[in-house]
């Protein structure tokens, strides 16, 4: 027994949207999904006319789907924006090297420029080297700190004022929950923002902030997109896994819960009387920071202190 699409009422429904429970055919789903991303971009004025937009490309499902959607929307709605792909090579052997191959295939397919920046070139350390030195227990936070910096530096290098990332609704809800779990009240509302203003001349935006993870995967599946889906070998140590499992369970019984958490995060404003960290510039690299030294410089200092010792030991041999 087949069910008709609730949207066009002519074709067979093939997908039950987790977001709102509607039953839609493949063509309507693809169109509705793209329209909703377009609405998010318009509503929050994510792209200004003539602005060059960087797209953070990892080769994974979210960024691959984002490249596909933005390419289609640009054509349909005549966006006056040029896109350039930005990839970070953290230096994770057997993982990032393979996913970058996926990015390179997509670069050719969509005919977009690609800028790859590596941790090794920027900071002198690959993530593999960092973890050999400091152990695997905080791998995701080291990686996150440096990746943030690397994206900023890459964007500066190719003079992009705005960076679009594939962060989806589940990611945003996860981050809100994580900041609750860590007691990091300052970051709660920040993690659910659509556009993050890091510095006066550089912004990040999330066109997928209202897109459910499952819908992105279904979109990639129905469009037969070429993406890389191996798990990062270091991700096993991440606290993020717990809220992720919880959110997937929640989505089954209460689909709007994902968006509700994001909305709650956005409404979570600290009273003026609370102590907010003042924003200043890192004394070493000039990046925006809440302390004298930014997190990346603190990490690199720690690493570089451990480095000379090893070299002396090698010389002794």
């Amino acid at each position, binding site marked *: 027994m087949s*069910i008709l699409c609730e949207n066009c009422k002519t074709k*067979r*429904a*093939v*997908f*039950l949207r987790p977001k709102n429970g509607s*039953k839609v055919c*493949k063509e309507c789903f693809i169109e509705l999904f793209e329209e909703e991303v377009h609405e998010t971009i318009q509503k929050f004025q994510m792209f200004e006319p003539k602005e060059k937009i960087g797209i953070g490309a*990892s080769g*994974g*499902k*979210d960024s691959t789907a984002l490249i596909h959607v933005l390419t289609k929307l640009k054509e349909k709605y005549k966006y006056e924006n040029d896109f350039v792909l930005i990839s970070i090579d953290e230096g994770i052997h057997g993982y990032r090297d393979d996913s970058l191959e996926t990015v390179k295939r997509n670069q050719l397919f969509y005919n977009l420029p690609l800028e790859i920046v590596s941790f090794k070139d920027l900071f002198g350390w690959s993530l593999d080297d960092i973890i050999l030195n400091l152990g695997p227990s905080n791998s995701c936070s080291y990686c996150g700190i440096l990746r943030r910096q690397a994206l900023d530096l890459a964007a500066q290098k190719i003079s992009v004022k705005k960076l679009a990332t*594939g962060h989806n609704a589940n*990611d945003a809800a996860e981050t809100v929950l994580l900041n609750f779990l860590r007691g990091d009240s300052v970051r709660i509302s920040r993690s659910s923002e659509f556009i993050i203003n890091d510095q006066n001349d550089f912004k990040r935006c999330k066109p997928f902030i209202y897109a459910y*993870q*499952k819908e*992105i*995967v*279904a979109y990639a*599946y*129905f469009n037969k997109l070429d*993406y*890389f*889906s*191996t*798990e*990062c070998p270091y991700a096993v140590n991440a606290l993020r896994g717990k809220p*992720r499992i919880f959110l*997937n*369970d929640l*989505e*089954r019984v209460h689909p709007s819960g994902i968006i509700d958490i994001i909305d709650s995060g956005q409404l979570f404003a600290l009273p003026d009387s609370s102590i907010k960290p003042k924003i200043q510039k890192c004394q070493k690299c000039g990046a925006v920071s809440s302390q004298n030294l930014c997190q990346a410089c603190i990490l690199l200092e720690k690493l570089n202190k451990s480095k000379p010792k090893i070299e002396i030991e090698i010389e002794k041999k």
Partner: protein
Amino acid sequence: MNVTIEFLGGLDALVEKQKEVKTTLPKEITHLKHLIIWIKENLMKSRQEEFVTNELQIRPGIMVLVNEIDWALLDEENYEIQQNDRIAFLSSLHGG
């Protein structure tokens, strides 16, 4: 019953990197609920918990599609398998 089973979105890692398995199912495997347990017991050597929960339900976050149709529109695990069905398990949990 001849079927093609696909492991997508990173699930191939649980079945020795096979993205597609063509097989003839034993007679008693008539519905998707049987197939899920059959896969867990016959195709997976480890990490089965990333595929099914302790209650032998498919893990939330994994979509199931039969001939490119969401199983949510096909009575889910009570769907009766047909000859030459293409059954895809698609994870939304891996990578990003």
